[in-house]
């Protein structure tokens, strides 16, 4: 192992080492990183051995700019905004990968974390090297954050030391936090784009002026279809922006079904079930796709098909993230699509008073 000071001469030496597939340590604006050629299988294997990781943990990579990033990941709007606002800087943006890096760099689900270190030496090396460099922190797993080379050397085994080819010493770094990881893959608009819009048959539309009002509309929505309960599954597919009142509508449905338990947002638990005293063996299943990466697949694994076969009453929030999946049950279930919208500024201007709580609620069958 060789230790050299961080200066202009070190740039070429570092690039040469990376080209040879060697493991080198260098500084960034956050911590020292363990850098290898992220496209080289051999080099990444060496890194995995050094990090002494159990299995399957991905590595973030550093690049020079957004252009280089776009070779290795697909950037959605959220990601592009993050690059624009926060990079270069201590932020790692996770996007869907293009599978051009070595095995084990991307996560198992094909995502890749990229960052653009705000650090001249790194920029110079990466620019010259023209390939992404792993930017994982230089400590072995579960060890302290590496702000100076001795933080690393004092905490690793001889075997690990033997894996290091080159260390570039920039002295003790300011104790900045490691980079913040931001996962943007849940915001892939492609999911929604693929689904296409929804057209409602027999569209109904009402204006709700309050949360209570919304709950009463839900009651009507229940009474209208109650006769089918126990004979067929009834699915309320809810579409509406954040804060529009989807959960409030489900509270209203539950109340109408005689459920006295408190209905809360299932965003976190994904699925909640409440037994309803007004239907024999009946229950209301409340699902939320907000947190699901592949809403259709996730709902299947949560047993949506079985729920429908068992003629359950189901309310699905953020249903627009899984239109096709929900549509596919239209033979077995009565599907009521419910849209909750904020009023447009034009519409609110025509109404008196504070219209902040007003919502346009429309529904129909699909």
């Amino acid at each position, binding site marked *: 192992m060789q230790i050299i000071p961080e200066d202009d001469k070190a740039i070429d030496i570092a690039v040469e080492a990376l080209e040879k597939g060697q493991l080198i340590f260098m500084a960034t604006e956050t911590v020292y990183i363990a850098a290898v050629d992220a496209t080289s299988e051999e080099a990444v294997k060496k890194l995995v051995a050094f990090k002494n990781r159990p299995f399957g943990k991905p590595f973030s990579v550093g690049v020079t700019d957004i252009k280089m990033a776009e070779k290795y990941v697909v950037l959605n709007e959220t990601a592009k905004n993050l690059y624009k606002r926060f990079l270069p800087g201590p932020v790692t943006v996770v996007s869907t990968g293009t599978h051009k890096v070595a095995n084990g760099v991307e996560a198992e689900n094909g995502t890749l974390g990229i960052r653009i270190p705000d650090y001249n030496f790194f920029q110079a090396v990466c620019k010259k090297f023209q390939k992404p460099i792993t930017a994982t922190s230089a400590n072995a797993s579960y060890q302290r954050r590496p702000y100076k080379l001795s933080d690393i050397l004092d905490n690793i085994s001889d075997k690990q030391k033997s894996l290091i080819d080159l260390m570039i010493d920039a002295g003790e770094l300011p104790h900045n936090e490691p980079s913040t990881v931001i996962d943007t893959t849940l915001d892939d608009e492609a999911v929604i784009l693929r689904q296409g819009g929804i057209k409602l048959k027999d569209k109904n539309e009402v204006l709700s002026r309050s949360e209570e009002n919304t709950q009463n509309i839900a009651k009507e929505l229940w009474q209208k279809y109650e006769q089918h309960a126990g004979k067929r599954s009834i699915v309320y597919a809810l579409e509406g922006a954040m804060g529009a009142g989807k959960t409030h509508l489900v509270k209203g449905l539950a109340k109408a079904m005689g459920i006295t338990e408190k209905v809360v947002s299932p965003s976190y638990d994904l699925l909640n079930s409440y037994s309803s005293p007004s239907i024999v063996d009946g229950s209301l299943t409340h699902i939320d796709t*907000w947190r699901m*990466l592949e809403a259709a697949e996730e709902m299947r694994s949560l047993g949506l098909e079985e729920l429908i076969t068992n003629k359950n009453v189901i309310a699905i929030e953020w249903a627009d993230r899984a239109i096709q999946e929900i549509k596919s049950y239209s033979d077995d279930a009565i599907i009521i699509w419910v849209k909750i919208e904020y009023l447009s500024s034009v519409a609110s201007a025509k109404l008196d008073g504070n219209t902040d709580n007003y919502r346009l609620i429309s529904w129909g069958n699909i």
Partner: protein
Amino acid sequence: MLILAIDTSCDETAVAVTANLQVVSNIVWSQSSLHSSFGGVMPSLAQRQHEERIDWVVQKALTTAHCSLSTIDCIAVTVGNGLGIALGVGINKAKELAIKYKKPLIPVSHTEAHLLSPFAIPNSQFPISNQFSNFQLPSFGLVLSGGTTVLCLVKSIGDYEILAETSDDALGEALDKAARLLGLGYPGGAILEKLAKTGDPKKYKLPLPLQNDRIKNRFSYSGLKTAFVRLYETTKDPNKQDIADLAATFQDTASSHVEKVLEYHCSRFTVHGSQKVTSLLFGGGVANNVELKKRLRKLLNKYRIKLHVPYTKKLNGDNAAMIGVCAYLKNKNLNAKKLNAKYGGLKNINSVDRDPRLRL
């Protein structure tokens, strides 16, 4: 009581070994993409991933603790609240081990474990100062996380009176949602906090939730969310500073709401009540929010109430050490024989089942 504890309530596969209140090992395998400090996003994969990882994590917890399944006294497992299919993996593994090694199996509530997590102590040869030397019951208990927002009165271990619960979103969920709206990905609660540090919480104005509640027996974040969506829409092409200001404003208002509800109960129990409450147990992922903790501490000082939080941040995220500690606290009066009568034997073990909506 040496306990092997398992928690697979959501995206983390967690196994720990605890000795009474002491955390001997606490292994958390996070399914999130890169950093274990954030939650995950692939619940359907959760089940499969839990199944693939759990043996490894159990082994790692045991070897780190230098013990084996034959030497532990009992097994504890989270049965709720959480994601049903994920919970099932931990429960099945716990049952398998309990039967194979003839150990009692204690079912534990995830929320109750968060509540009691401040009682955990580190595995250290050096004695630490005991933050509970003057601890008295009843105490307040506050659990704020992605899935739970509850303030309760802890009358005794296992006997809780709910003082306020959320009527819609959990606080952690609301923070994550606000972060996602700001384009900070998911889960963004922790990132929102980081950004908020550089933001001005007074730059914008958001309405305080449930201001008109005279009796403050609930939390609500839906109205705040709505107002935040509106506010964000009026901010044209926000730059980094605007985003930080928005983050700070949201966090500030969300925290004020917790403060107001807590203050109501502080004054209720301090002035009028015959029983005086002198401490508050605080757990759950949002307890890692430094700004909120600071504000709560200040408020509690005013009422001379001591704030108890876990000794390490790791105990606030999903973990299994708190499960072991909770199982111990609830059963510490049972000797081995009684413990076995209550939780041992095929019949008892097989009756342990998931309860996805279990609360306190």
